[in-house]
Structure formats: C-alpha cells, structure tokens
C-alpha cells in the first residue's frame, strides 16, 4: 500500500516536472537556434551525428537490457555454452563503425575547411579581450567601442582577435562556435547574423574572478542603421554646457578616471597602457562593467560606489567617490550618446 502511494507520488512528480519543463523558455545562449549561416552549418553537422549516436545508443543499451532480462539466471536455466568469441563478428563490428565514422568524417573535414577562413569582402573588426570586458575596433571606419559588438546584418564580419592579458573565448552561439583570444597571437572568427537583432554572447574560457560576468553580446543592424551607427560613433563627445551637473561630472572624470578611460576629445589613454573601456559613446551600449550590470542610473551608482563589490576582482578600484561626485559623473555619462 505504502509502495503504491509512493508510486503515485512519483508519477505526480514526473507529470509536474514535465509541465514545468514545457514552460521553460530557451536560454538566450541556446546553441541550437542558429541565426546565421555559420551557426547554421554547425547545426546541420550536429543533428545527423546526434541521430546516428542515438541509434547506436538504443542498440547497445537495448542489447544490454534484453540480455539482462532474457539470459538472467533463473531456476532450471542450463549452464551457458562457453563461447570464446567469433572472428566474423569482430571484423563486422570493427568495419561497420569504421564506415559510419568515415561518413561522419567527410562532412566534418569539409565543415572545418569551410568555416575557418574568412570570405573575401567580409567586414573587418578587431576584438581585444581584457579581464573582464571585450574591446572592439573597426579599422575601416576608425571606431573604437566595447562590450557590445555592433555589426551589419546579412553581411559576413571577419573578427581578428587577440588578448591583452589572459586567454578569453568569444562565443555568440547563434552566430558561430567559439574561438580563443590569445595574448601575443591573432585568431580569426567569422560572424554573420541574417537578421537585425540582439545576440547574446559570453566569454567561454575561464579567465579569472569575473569570468562568468564577461559578456560578448552582438547587435546586428540593417545596412542603413549600421552606416548611421558608424557615423555616430565617429563623432567626438559633446562638451557639456558650463555650470550644468554634467560639466561638474566632466571635471570629476578628468581628475579621477583618465588614467584608464578615454573619452574623445577629453583625453586619450595610449593603446599600450593599461586600459579600461573607451567611454566616448558609453550610453550606446546599455551595459556597465563589461556586461556585469545592465545600465540604469541606480546600477551605475552602485558600480561607481564600489566596483569590486559588483564585479569580483574588478580592476577598477573603489575610488572613494563622494555622493556628489557620483551624481555628477552619472549626469555627465548620460550625455555620452
């Protein structure tokens, strides 16, 4: 009786679990939802192999189960014949998997070759990994930004990548697989989104304390929007009118922040110096601290008050800013469109 009740409870749990599973939305990093040709190509490689593997899984596990049920020692069961092996079978189950695997190998090799080299006419960007944010440069258009990579939709983007410190790994699952960013070396990654939209990305190689907070998001814009965006990024920041809170913020920035952060035309941190993100168009990103926090004035206040509290290990120290300084900085930063 108790057993039956337990069974009922178990069944109920399974049904409930089933219901809640159906209700779970896909993660924004879902790698099974390709949105560009490269991710699509990988997807079309994964599924056939998955189904072949599933077939073998069913075969082997089925055979074990059947054997355990059918050949179980029961009263009256005769001693088994002592079979030592069968050479024909050995050859068969060596050759058949080999043939299946050769079938897997051919599209694999073609996939590797097709996916590793950028196409001619791809739009070039440079990605530099930092602990813990990504820096983006657009050499053709002389633009420098961070945290969110903005790309033209429907066009291949060829990313040339390196790292300023440790290994990082650029991964936007809906657009392509992963590629490391290696200090002292250059790696390339092809990215293409078919449609305009936001694509979530993430640093995938363990890179220290704030690894899990290091986003690699991509925003794809239509051809026109992208051209307009480039133009907006090429403009220097406007100087705030004297006497406004923003002007006070600029002064705080000049006094406290220019060792690491660049705002064109206020200052330039040399590229080979220790760098924080370029803040010239900060408000365009929607994120603070390499993606650790979404932008709201409250979040920015939290961040400025004590960065390592928000992002473990943050290289931006607690500067001991006063509340007035923080308010002024926020007022200034909000002008950096």
């Amino acid at each position, binding site marked *: 009786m108790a057993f039956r009740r337990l069974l009922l409870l178990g069944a109920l749990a399974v049904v409930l679990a089933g219901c809640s599973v159906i209700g779970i939305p896909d993660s924004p990093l879902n790698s099974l939802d390709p949105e560009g040709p490269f991710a699509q190509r990988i997807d079309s490689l994964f599924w056939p192999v998955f189904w072949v593997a599933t077939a073998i899984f069913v075969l082997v596990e089925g055979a074990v189960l059947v054997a355990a049920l059918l050949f179980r020692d029961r009263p009256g069961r*005769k001693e088994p014949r002592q079979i030592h092996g069968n050479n024909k079978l050995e050859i068969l189950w060596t050759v058949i998997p080999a043939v299946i695997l050769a079938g897997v190998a051919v599209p694999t090799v073609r996939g590797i070759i097709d996916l590793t080299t950028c196409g001619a006419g791809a739009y070039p960007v440079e990605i530099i990994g930092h602990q813990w944010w990504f820096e983006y440069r657009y050499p053709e258009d002389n633009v420098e930004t961070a945290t969110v990579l903005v790309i033209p939709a429907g066009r291949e983007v060829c990313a040339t990548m390196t790292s300023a410190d440790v290994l990082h790994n650029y991964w936007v699952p809906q657009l392509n697989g992963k590629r490391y960013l290696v200090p002292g070396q250059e790696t390339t990654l092809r990215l293409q989104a078919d449609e305009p939209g936001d694509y979530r990305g993430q640093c995938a190689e363990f890179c220290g304390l704030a690894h899990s907070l290091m986003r690699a998001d991509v925003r794809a814009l239509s051809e026109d929007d992208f051209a307009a965006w480039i133009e907006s990024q090429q403009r220097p920041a406007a100087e705030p009118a004297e006497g406004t809170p923003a002007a006070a913020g600029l002064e705080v920035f000049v006094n406290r922040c220019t060792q690491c952060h660049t705002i064109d035309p206020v200052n330039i941190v040399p590229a080979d110096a220790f760098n924080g993100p370029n803040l010239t168009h900060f408000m365009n990103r929607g994120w603070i601290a390499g993606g650790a926090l979404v932008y709201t004035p409250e979040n920015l206040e939290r961040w400025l008050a004590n960065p390592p509290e928000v992002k473990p*290990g943050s290289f931006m120290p607690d500067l001991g800013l006063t509340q007035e300084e923080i308010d002024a900085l926020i007022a200034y930063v909000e002008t950096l469109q």
Partner: protein
Amino acid sequence: MTTTEPITTTIFRRPKSETGFWSWITTVDHKKIGIMYGYTAFIFFLIGGLEALLLRIHLASAESEFLTAADYNGLFTTHGLTMIFLVVMPMSAAFMNYLLPLMIGARDVAFPRLNALSYWIFLFGGIFLYSGLLFSAIVPPLGNEGVPGNLDPGDARSFGALPDGGWFLYQPNAGGAFSPSNAIDFAVLGLQILGIASLLSAVNFIVTFFNLRAKGMRLLRVPVFIWMTLVVAFLLLFSLPIIAIALFMVTFDRQFGTLFFDATAGGDPILWQHLFWLFGHPEVYILILPAMGIVSEIIPVFSRKPLFGYAAVVFAGAGIAFLGFGVWAHHMFASGISTVAQVGFGLTTITIAIPTGVKIFNWVGTLWLGKIRLATPMLFALGFLTMFTIGGLSGVTHAVVPSDWQQTDTYYVVAHFHYVLFGGAIFGIFGGLYYWFPKFSGRMLNERLGKIHFWLWMLGFNLTFAPMHWLGLQGMIRRTWRYDPSLEFWNRLVTLGAFIIAVGLLFFMWNFYVSKRRGTPAGMDPWDARTLEWSIPNPTPAFNFAEVPVVHSLDEWWHEKYEEDKAGRPVRRDGAEATIERLHEINTNPPHPIHLPNPSYFPIVMAAGLPLIAYGIIFHVSLLGKALIVAGTLLSLAALIGWGSEPLEEAHVEPAHT
C-alpha cells in the same frame, strides 16, 4: 615447521611489527599497500565529493551568493584535481597493487620497497596539495610591476587559498602575473610529487608483469585487468615525463622569472596547452582503462561465460592507449590551431571510437546467451557498460570539430566526461570494490544495501549529469559562478541528483563498515570465479600462494573447476572440491616456511623529503625556504643510503627440509 633465524646485517634495527600501526608504516606487502591506497583515495573521494556538493548548492540558483567567486574558482579546481589525481588514479592503483601479483600467481610485485615508496609519495603529495589551505600567502608577482588593479585573489575568500586556476592550469591565467597567490604553486608542485609516485608504480608494474608471471601464463593467458594494468603503466611511463617538464616550466615561470608562457616576452600560452594535453589525454585513458579491465573480469564471472573476444578486448585496450597519444589537440579545437591541425586531430579522435566500440560490443557479446546473475558487482559493471556508452557517444559528437566549437567549454563537456569518469571509471571501481571486497576482508558486502547503493547512484548520477547535456547546449558555460536565470530549473535538478549520489554513498559506507565486521564469511571462492586470486583463501594469506600455480589456460581457475561437455557447456570436474580443499589447506597451513620481503622504514622517510623540498621551492625567497630544500634533500639522500645498505630479505639459515 621450523622458524628461521634471521641474521641482522644492517646498521639500523629493522622494523619487526607484523600488526598494528608500525606494520602499516613499514610494510612492503603489496596487499597492505593496496589497501592503504584504497582507504586514502576514499578519504579524498569524500573531500572531492564534498567540494562538488558545495559547488552544486551554489549553482542551485542563478544569482547565488552562497560562495564567493574566489571560493567557487578554488573549489572547482580542487574538485577536478582531487577526483583525477587523488581518487580515480589511486583507486585504480589500489586494485593494481592488490591484484597484480595475485592474478599472475606471484608473491609480490617486482620491487616491494619501491611500491611502498610510491604510496608514501602519493600520500604526501596529496596532503601537500591541500596544505595550501594552511600555508599559502600572497606573494608579489614577478616582473609584472606594471599591472595595476585589484589582483589580490585573497579577497573575499572563506576557505583560505585553494589553487584556483582550474585543474588544467591554463597559462597565463595560472601564471605569476595573474595568479600571484602561491595557492597555485601547491597544485603545480603537488602534481609534480604525485607524478613521481605514478612513475615509480609504472616501472614496478611493467617489470612485475614481464618477469613474475606464474609458469605457463603466456601473454594471451593474462587476465584482462592485468593487461590493462600494463597498458596504463606504459601510458604513465610515456606521458608523465611530459607533464613533469611542463610543470617545471610553470614552476620556473612562477618562481624564478623565466618566461616560457609569457606572451608579453615572446613566450607562448598555447605551448602550455599542447604540453598539458599531450599528457592530459593519455591521462583520460589512464583513468578509464583500469575500470575497463575490472568490468572485463566481472562480466564473464557473472555471465558464467568466458569473455567474448578476449584477444580483441586486449588489443583494443592497447590500441586505445596508442591512439590516445595522437588526439590531444581535440581539447584545443577552439584555441585557434591551424585548419590542418583541426582536420588531423578531428580524424584521429573519430578513429578512437572504433576500438572503444569493439570493447563495448565484446562485453555485450559476453552477456549474450550467458546465465546472468545480477549481484551487486555485476550491476555496477552493467552500470559502467550503459553509462560509459553514453559518454563515448557524446565523445563522438566532439570529434565533429565544428560542433565541438559550440560545445567546448560548456556543460555539455562536463556531462560528457562525467559519463566517462563517473559513469565509467567510478562505477567500474565500485563494481571492483563489491567484487573483490571478500578478497581482502574475508567477508561479503551486504547485497541488499549494495543494490540500494547501486540504484540510488543510477538515479542520482543520471539526474545530475544527463541535464548537463541540455544545459551545455543551452549555452551554460563551464566554470561559471553565475548563469542565465532561464537555466535555474535544470540546475536545481542537477543539485538534487548530486545529493542523491551522496545518500547512495552513505549506504555504501554503512555497508562497508558493517560488513567488514559482521558480514557473511566469504569462503574461498564466493563468486565461482575464473582467475587465480580466487584459488587461495580469503582474506589473502600474507604469502599469497603457498604453492606457486602453474597455468595451463586463460581463466586458469575456472578450468581447474570445470570441463566442457559435448555441447560446450561447463560441467564441474570430479576433483574440483578436492582441489579447492587441498588449496585451502596448504594456503592455511603452508607445509614449509615462506620468506617474504622484510619491512623497511626507508620508503616513508625517503618520501617525506619530497614535500619538504617542494615547500622550500615555494618559500625559496626566505632563509627558511632554502633550509627546507637542503633538509628535504638530505633526508631523502639519507634514506636512499639506508635503503641501499639494507637487503630486501635478510640472510636466513635455511632449515633442512624434512
């Protein structure tokens, strides 16, 4: 029986205790050493498991504050190091030590004192690795004054400094500039020490295999577990020097300002990955092949059939090991290695599925038409077979290189290798524990508790690791302290599974504790087994075999008990009971004295020098550090001299045989 008169020839008094504390400290008996390996590894298993539970509690919610990021990084690093180097390897070593001489009909391994030295080095290496918790301190980075910011990983820790660079110690993150705390050094030098232990065992086992097999045990009459021991010993012999060199390079980078892996000075962080995985992939087979050997022993016994395709299983094992040296860069498909390298390593990785498949099919072939007893050892062996198959198949999806670009560094990989190393290696090892428990205790483990353990593990294991496939495909990266809230449901399921595994383990511990004291006496051959270790009483007598067996066939012990009728079915030999009776008698009361290797103090003393040297290297800047290096070296050297002056067996007056 006359007692022999030992003639003492050494300067120091030799240890005499045959029971109690000192007998264990000074033992050179492969069985006692095997048991010590087993218990030590089990304690580390509890530590590594506890670390896993802490990680899982943290990951039960997406925005958890249960652990700080620093603690989280430390725990996943030590969880990996512990389970690989302090659990699966030494658990396998426990079986190899205990069983290698017994299964080939030998009195001990070829170098009994070297065997003891291996164990003590392993124990001290393991303790050293964890001693960073007590001794680590923040030291200034070498030659990186230019890096500003908050580099102090001692911030926000609650566990003291555990090594936190990942078990793979990727450079430059685990180098001096980015991990200035010497916590990492405890991992680097700890692994170096553990490597020495494994290397010594490898040499010992290889020599034992080739020289001490009983008369008539030709190569293709050697039990599969012993074959896998040999293959693993060769894997260790060839792969450990690579990691030893790589670890020396890291030690020099971190301690003495060399720049092997420092890109800013022209060093190469990818070189570390090549060296690490050139060791690290063979290491995977070092972990799994012993378990494959164990199930190759269990499945035939509980199917009452010989292993199907014995030679194929042996050669497939050797083939896997050989290919295992040619696939290392599949851990690096996303690292930007050249297209040609990706194609090449993709193809070799695909190839390795073939011998693995051969093994699986032969195990199924052994079951087929058998007479299957689902006793606990067999359940675990079948657990191995079914779970390892899943791990193997997900491995094939990694060989599809572009697909691996998506899956690498995600929980999909975590799922894959836990199916191989937990579903495979650990299930195999526990099958072995249930199977050979009577061998060393003389009693049986309780079947009922064993079955509860097994089913809790099957449930808990799959609940823990199956959803991880999905989590990985949904983009949950590895080694992440935070994750997307949409993945919380699956993570809670995983955490629940982890606790079910823990409960299952409690059942095992209870079973072990009770059965060791009050379990059913096992008798001589409780499973009606096939191999030589069951031809002697349980627990094994100190001298193993009073009469060294002569081997006439594969599965020698089975054929002493059974002959085949015309249909090829086994029929108990008429003399079987008499044979068993006789073997029991001569092994209980040996008709003549048997000389065993004498115990020795020197292995443990010699091993004790190594961690002292390692501490010295870490603190070499201070006078204390330099003194420790000298002291450790002198201690080991002194032990070496003592060892050399002490014969393995004291000369004895041979009594006249009457």
